[in-house]
């Protein structure tokens, strides 16, 4: 079974802090994604990566950056956390094949920015 793990289930940070959210997958997937999930807004794509050191902006990249130095690890960075970044963050990975994409999700990190 594919396993996607996220470094923290719950995180509390203060406004202005630099925040790192880590995601690791163990199935050698090429693609990795970061979403945030908010009530009434569903899942919104922040960034994705289709290879090591490659990254692409999603729908809401502002205030975030990412790093993919190794294939199995995809980090989401909040350079200066703000209260409007309080949210549930979900990481996912996939292996593209024949143009079909099924994503495997981690358990999520619930971030509270005070």
């Amino acid at each position: 079974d594919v396993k996607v793990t996220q470094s923290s289930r719950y995180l509390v940070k203060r406004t202005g802090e630099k925040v790192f959210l880590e995601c690791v997958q163990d199935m050698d997937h090429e693609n990795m994604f970061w979403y945030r999930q908010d009530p009434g807004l569903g899942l919104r794509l922040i960034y994705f990566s289709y290879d090591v050191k490659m990254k692409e902006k999603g729908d809401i990249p502002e205030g975030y950056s990412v790093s993919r130095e190794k294939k199995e690890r995809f980090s989401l960075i909040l350079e200066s956390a703000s209260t409007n970044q309080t949210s549930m963050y979900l990481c996912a990975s996939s292996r593209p094949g024949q143009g079909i994409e099924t994503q495997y999700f981690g358990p999520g990190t619930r971030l509270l920015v005070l």
Partner: protein
Amino acid sequence: SQQGEEDPQALSIQEGENATMNCSYKTSINNLQWYRQNSGRGLVHLILIRSNEREKHSGRLRVTLDTSKKSSSLLITASRAADTASYFCATQDPSGGGADGLTFGKGTHLIIQP
């Protein structure tokens, strides 16, 4: 950007009854997928239906796709308390080549009353 829209937003039924959720989307798709999310957890892939398919079954799940109406439905038969969760449809843009992710709807929250 959001494409899929689930309907209804919330659904409460008695255990043993069938649950039907609908999804509408706006542009052409490569495939449509349904995911389940238990409270506070990540999403789990349930079933995928390709754009050239009309119906697909998996256990107690039945998915239909009508590309002319740009809509899909998910039927869960003989519901159980463990089916209580949020259900999301997700579409894949055929031009994406499988590398640029899925577009998720806002979800239907299903409650199964014992």
